């Protein structure tokens, strides 16, 4: 396990990078997903994996039965998975919205220089009143 997991993580990371560099937005997102998973795997395999007793405290006892497995990496990965899930959901929604607005998922067309950036700013009618005054 100790040697296989890092190799798998590295391979997934490399695949993710390859997809990240593709033009299609969807492939880019899949690339991010793969990298995210490979980092979680790395966190898992670097977290001193051991097959020991589960880190649970029996009723009536004050500490778990030694030697117990390290429970921290799982907690870290769980946090990372939840955060990654939220961010990726947002990225997907953003990609979908961009597709709807801009009509393409090809990044070369998608990211061509924007026109007037002042478009994002909503004009105020207060000005007209001010002008009259």
């Amino acid at each position, binding site marked *: 396990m100790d040697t296989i997991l890092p190799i798998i993580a590295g391979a997934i990371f490399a695949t993710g990078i390859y997809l990240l560099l593709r033009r299609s937005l969807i492939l880019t997102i899949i690339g991010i997903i793969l990298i995210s998973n490979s980092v979680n795997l790395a966190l898992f395999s670097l977290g001193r994996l051991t097959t020991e007793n589960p880190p649970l405290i029996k009723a009536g006892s004050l500490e778990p039965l030694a030697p117990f497995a390290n429970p921290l990496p799982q907690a870290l990965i769980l946090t990372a998975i939840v955060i990654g899930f939220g961010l990726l959901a947002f990225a997907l929604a*953003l990609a979908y919205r961009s597709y709807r607005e801009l009509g393409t998922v090809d990044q070369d067309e998608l*990211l061509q220089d924007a026109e007037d950036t002042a478009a994002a700013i909503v004009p105020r009618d207060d*000005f007209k009143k001010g002008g009259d005054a």
Partner: protein
Amino acid sequence: MNGMLVLPVAIPLITATLGLLFRKSSQLQRWIGVLGAVALLGSAVVLFRDVYADGIQVLQLGNWAAPFGITLVADMLTMLMVGISAIMGLIIAIYSLYDIDKERERFGYYPLLHILIMGVNGSFLTGDIFNLYVWFEVMLIASFILLALGNSKNQLQGALKYVFINLFSSLVFLFGVALLYGMTGTLNMADLAVRLPEVENTGLVTTTAMIFMVAFGIKAAVFPLFFWLPASYHTPPVAISAIFGGLLTKVGVYALIRVFTLLFTVESAHNDYLHTILLWVGGFTMVIGVLGAASHMEFRKILSFHIVSQIGYMIMGLAFNTAMGIMGAIFYVLHNILAKSNLFLISGVAQRLLGTFELKKMGGLYKHYPFLAVLFLISAFALAGFPPLSGFWAKLSLVKAGLSIEQYVITGVAILVGLLTLFSMTKIWLTAFWSPVPDEKPEHFGKIPLFGAGKLYILMIPVMIIAGLIIMVGLYAQPLLELCMTAAEQLLDPSVYIEAVLGPQ
């Protein structure tokens, strides 16, 4: 133990929650937004007094002793950063009262702004490296939504670049955390500082340091990882641009300063490559950023490239790795947050008056709005480093630090870049302020006053407050310089930090 330490995180959280509860009423949301920012500023001041009087303050969350629980730590650097983020929060909340439209308010602009500030403050306060990752993500998700809110085409384009590069950098950061945990078996930063020098595989320590440099370097927008910043920061409404440009990249700089003074020091990496690399990175960041700014003709794009260029100065100060250099870097961060966000805010006022950010279509601001022109000059000269404004002292301490350790080349580059900064500031001045009034101008130009009808004064109040702060810091620099010196000395002597967190060794 100081329970007050949770306040800079808890107050924005409460404010955001209240804002979401009353999201139907935009009037209430605005009040909650501003009052929450005032409360945050108050808590920052109180905490600051504690740190100033009694040194580093520590809070073990849930009363789990370090290094097992999550620790919040406030040293002088943290408090200076929390203080400036609270000031910025208030300024932006006031500016948003006019700048942000009803539609964005309806979709929760104010709660998001406060969640962003919560993430920023959390990153400053935490003493746990994994917790830092979590706070970065809190900050990121809020910034993603703020950037994309409104769904205009160029906003979506900007947001796509911003989102993907930042997702990637977070993953790189997480991988670095995994390596640190694998090497030392701990995540508490003070504990890491103790254990890292004992790690035998020094090559791996250096590699991990490089991974952190890349991860935080993307967030701080250093050369060659900055391309996403000028491509996205000019797209959202000005209030959002200003807080992004002022505050967010500086969180990356803060993380770099923290990690490269506490964890990856010359002792733990057993060599000095890291600071040499940082020095090169700083130099290139300064030069490339300022050249990018020289080649653009859009108000906010010029400012965005200047963010990059200014980051270079801070990295340079960090790379000097002396008390003077780090003091200069911290002072530069504080000064730059003020000057840079003020320039963004002024660009917003100019856009309201002229209807565009394109410098070629602008003009006549000096003729009709001389007061605005004066405020612009104050901020622009501060950015370029003219005495007696804040930027002068920031540059002076960095130059002094560079000369005192005989880094003549980089110091020369820094001074030259200051001149080039002045060049693009003059470019804005010549086109937007001094050139004749353009033919195609909005009807209201020249007719509505800055104060009085038209409510432009809501935008002007924050601009004037920051301009006042810039002048004040410039004229009474000594107290702030001393605080920055205290912060730098604390950073260079990690044993105080370690003892405050882990108890006497």
